[in-house]
């Protein structure tokens, strides 16, 4: 038999049972569509997070107090326990390294911010002039913290967009004196909104000079130090220098952790890939169910068409041709369902993107290939048994079947 004839014959057989074929295609396409959508969501989330970290800049190292033995996400990030303080002097000493371009020490706290009768609890970040460039933030109006020695405190502050709106409303914020707990400082600028930028809400914060912040919170301890290497090649050098300098200063105790963007990204990448695969695996179960449905329908088809099979044998069709006819029917169901499923998956991904424009929801190519391949294998695997059953029918019995 010619392939084109086999295809035509099986196609005719499929469309002669429209409802049954449509239901099977639906089952198959739901399976494939769920694999497509879920992997698309997974890879969308990954792209989103990677973009977020990329916005940090590529030469960035982060120094945290406390030592963790494993790389990647440090426990101290979450728990916040510090064996030994990371001080401003530590931060300053890092500039000894020739690989380091600039640093921005960061201290973090919360204070009641008030102006006239309006009061609001806002996160306070203490840092320096360099933070703006290191985080790639921009100013909406006014200036960022002035360039000065990191030990010097100064009664100035930069506020986030939301703080300005909530506290000052329509008033001009710049030049006003803002009360931060027991301190007072003058507003010199407003930060342009970047939304959530790697865990920091750039709209709802007040930034003051780091020395002022440490005074305000009455603690010598920094939350972390952001370090920018001179180039990407010098990242490793900078990391080693940081550890060495801090070790020397901390009486030979290596009690800080240096994480790089790559390490964080790598960890996120691993986690998200694992989640995507797990979710796709769960979705693949529905593919297996669809495969069983195909087998079921093919078995029904073989029994309904027993007389036809007998006739084909009488007309001189060998077992091989009959096996092929039924196998192609199963494969055609599976592949058509697969293609439909991918189309549904793409449509759904497009729809999700319209609702959440920040997520880039596009099914990864490997998922498409995998879904189609799985559909094909499903058709082959679950079509074999019915096809063999059809091919092995006794022609005399088949012809007299009712």
């Amino acid at each position, binding site marked *: 038999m010619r392939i084109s004839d086999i295809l035509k014959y099986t196609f*005719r057989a499929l469309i002669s049972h429209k409802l049954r074929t449509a239901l099977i295609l639906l089952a198959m396409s739901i399976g494939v569509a769920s694999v497509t959508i879920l992997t698309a969501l997974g890879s969308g989330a990954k792209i989103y997070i990677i973009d977020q970290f990329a916005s940090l800049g590529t030469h960035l190292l982060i120094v945290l107090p406390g030592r963790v033995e494993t790389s990647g996400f440090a426990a101290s990030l979450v728990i916040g326990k510090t064996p030994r303080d990371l001080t401003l002097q530590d931060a300053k000493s890092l500039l000894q390294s020739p690989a380091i371009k600039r640093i921005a020490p960061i201290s973090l706290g919360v204070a009641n911010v008030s102006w006239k009768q309006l009061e609001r609890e806002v996160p306070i970040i203490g840092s320096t002039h360099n933070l703006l460039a290191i985080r790639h933030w921009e100013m909406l109006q006014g200036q960022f913290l002035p360039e000065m020695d990191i030990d010097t405190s100064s009664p100035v502050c930069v506020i986030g967009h939301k703080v300005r709106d909530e506290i000052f409303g329509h008033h001009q914020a710049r030049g006003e004196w803002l009360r931060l707990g027991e301190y007072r400082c003058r507003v010199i600028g407003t930060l342009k909104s970047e939304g959530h930028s790697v865990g920091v809400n750039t709209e709802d914060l007040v930034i003051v000079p780091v020395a002022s912040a440490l005074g305000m919170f009455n603690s010598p301890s920094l939350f972390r130090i952001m370090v920018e290497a001179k180039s990407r090649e010098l990242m490793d050098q900078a990391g080693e220098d940081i550890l060495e300098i801090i070790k020397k200063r901390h009486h030979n105790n290596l009690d800080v952790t240096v994480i790089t963007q790559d390490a964080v990204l790598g960890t996120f990448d691993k986690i998200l890939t694992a989640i995507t695969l797990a979710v796709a695996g769960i979705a693949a179960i529905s593919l297996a169910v669809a495969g069983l449905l195909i087998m079921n329908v093919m078995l029904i088809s073989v029994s309904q068409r027993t007389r*036809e099979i007998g006739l084909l044998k009488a*007309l*001189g069709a060998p077992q091989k041709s009959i096996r092929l006819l039924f196998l192609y029917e199963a494969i055609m169901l599976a592949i058509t369902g697969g293609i439909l499923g991918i189309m549904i998956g793409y449509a759904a991904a497009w729809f999700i993107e319209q609702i959440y424009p920040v997520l880039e929801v596009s099914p990864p190519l490997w998922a498409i290939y995998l879904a189609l391949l799985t559909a094909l294998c499903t058709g082959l695997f679950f079509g074999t048994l019915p096809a063999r059953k059809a091919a092995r029918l006794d*022609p005399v019995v088949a012809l007299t079947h009712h």
Partner: protein
Amino acid sequence: MIHLDNISRHFQVGDQVVKALDNIQLTINAGEYISIMGPSGSGKSTLLNIIGLLDEPTSGDYIFENRNITQFSESELADFRRDNIGFVFQFFHLVPRLSTAENIELPMVLAGIAPEVRAKKVYEILESLDLQDRAHHRPNQLSGGQRQRVAIARATVLKPRIILADEPTGNLDRHSGSDVIEVLESFLQQKITLITVTHDPDIGSRAKRKIKMVDGCIVSDE
């Protein structure tokens, strides 16, 4: 052309062995017109199925032009059937979803013949059986006599050497029945062997050679 040597076909029914054919000796020559008659269960259809290679004998040899068919493999048998034998059944066995032309085309599709050749042959045979205006009808849009003529067209489109008709008029009224018999007999002019199994003595007596069967044995052959 065909020689059946000591052919037996036994069926196991429960713990009993039913001898549908019991040591049949039969020689069939090319171009013969044979009718096989006998009561129900006498083995007529089984004999026809054995000759048509749809059924395999339990014992004995089937010799076709000095070749022993009994030793053929499954796919060799299928090819042999396709090239040499045309079946006509009591219940027509047309594929309901296919049109008249497509049903007639089916043996050529299975044989892998090119579509252009098929179209030409289908047209010729439709013309010769006066079915041109029914080419695109489905079987359920045809009368019984028309259906059987389509089935005959399908059985003969590959120019078989033997036509095996199992109760070809069993499902037809008298008029379309004799019409069908005439169509079948018209192939005798082309030196095709025609073997009909029938209950109807009128139709059976039309054949030159009349075989009567009882209980799996040939009781008369004249």
